[in-house]
């Protein structure tokens, strides 16, 4: 039976090495100084554009808020997903319940790196896998704009997640697989400027791919089906294909896309619906140039057929 003992010993050693390795590989790491020095002073008026491009208010305002109430970032929405319920927190300027006490470095670490000021991993329900592609100077501008918004007291409830998703440390391994600050779509060097500008808005702050791209079993976006549409993560229904593949936007012109983002009307005069209603209201706050850039990029992404299963016939 000596071999069995040896095997058990080897298993224990391997398990120990694996655990130690996993512990090291999953450690939250803060941004290095080279990135932080690129933040710069920050400009609130430019930050307003980033705020609407990023759609912060869609998740962080109190659910159902209209008008100026959308600038009260008290949190509390419930995102019910297969991993459990995520609750976007208070990111108002309240120093205790919100992020009023955060430094610009703290915001950069959260958005570019998914690490909280206390050094914990943040859940990627907060779409930092997209925000990681943002320019540090845009984070500083956003920080300056957030400073102009009201402080609202009140903590949102905690996330409610099942095992093993409730172990934050595990996100460190997830990040090694999915966190990447490089562009998803490689555009030719001859690509027009609007498409390049649109790529930044869509893949970075706009985080369109977080809902419009199907996810694999571990919850990472499938880059090979980028923007192909997906089963909605937080409820019934689907999120449409916004590539020019079958089922997508092939019949929409760039002007149609830009007009939809501005007015909420599709080319057939259906209207925007679902979670996109809030997104469209944010897009309407951008300049016509930004909306045209988004349209130019969407027309340049590789076409894919729908990233969700075909509708079952009515029963």
């Amino acid at each position, binding site marked *: 039976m000596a071999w069995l003992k040896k095997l058990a010993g080897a298993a224990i050693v391997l398990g120990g090495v694996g655990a130690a390795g996993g512990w090291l590989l999953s450690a939250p790491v803060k941004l290095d100084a080279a990135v932080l020095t690129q933040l710069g002073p920050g400009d609130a008026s430019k930050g307003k554009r980033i705020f609407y491009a990023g759609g912060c208010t869609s998740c962080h305002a109190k659910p159902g808020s209209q008008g100026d109430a959308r600038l009260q970032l008290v949190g509390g929405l419930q995102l019910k997903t297969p991993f459990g319920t995520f609750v976007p927190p208070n990111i108002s300027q309240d120093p205790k319940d919100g992020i009023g006490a955060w430094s610009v470095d703290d915001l950069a670490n959260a958005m570019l790196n998914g690490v909280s000021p206390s050094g914990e991993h943040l859940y990627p329900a907060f779409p930092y896998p997209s925000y990681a592609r943002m320019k540090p100077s845009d984070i500083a501008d956003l920080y300056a704009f957030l400073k102009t918004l009201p402080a609202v007291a009140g903590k949102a409830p905690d996330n409610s997640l099942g095992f093993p998703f409730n172990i934050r440390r595990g996100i460190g391994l997830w990040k090694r697989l999915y966190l990447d600050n490089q562009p998803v779509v490689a555009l030719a060097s001859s690509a027009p400027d609007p498409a390049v500008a649109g790529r930044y808005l869509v893949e970075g702050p706009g985080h369109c791919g977080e809902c419009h791209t199907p996810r694999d079993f571990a919850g990472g976006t499938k880059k090979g089906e980028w923007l192909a549409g997906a089963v909605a993560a937080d409820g019934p229904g689907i999120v449409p294909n916004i590539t020019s593949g079958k089922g997508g936007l092939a019949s929409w012109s760039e002007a149609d896309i830009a007009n939809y983002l501005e007015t909420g009307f599709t080319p057939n005069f259906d209207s925007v619906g679902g979670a996109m209603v809030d997104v469209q209201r944010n897009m309407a706050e951008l300049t016509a140039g930004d909306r045209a850039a988004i349209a130019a990029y969407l027309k340049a992404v590789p076409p894919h057929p729908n990233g969700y299963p075909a509708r079952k016939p*009515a029963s």
Partner: protein
Amino acid sequence: MRKLVVAISMLAFAGSAAFADPIIDRQALMKERGKIVGGLAKVAKGEDAFDAGAVLTQLQALQANAEKFDVDALFPKGSDVGDTTAGPKIWEDTVGFKAVEDKYLSNVKAAVAAPPADVDALKAQVGAIGSDCGTCHQGYRVKKG
């Protein structure tokens, strides 16, 4: 006499059968609504010329369409299954659903009562109406494949 009663009741039955599918009825109403709003949006965008009389006619058609939108008749219990994108919230929160529809109707009525004299006025009205479309489709419609 008896024959007449039978004939009338058969006619009545045929009549109700023609409107027996609330899913088809409500989809037809929404299609018509979209078409009218689409025509108005084209004028608001400057793609079609502004003609105050024609715009008022379109707004009146929109009001007639909105007044036909009888929630109880068009969204009876059980009509959430089948070829429909009506969301479950319509039946969970019928009061809220009716309130959104009422707000839409009152915005359309306001536009008819104070018909736009120029493109900018129309733009503001189409904007308010379009926002109502979005508010309802945000919570009460589920996009399917």
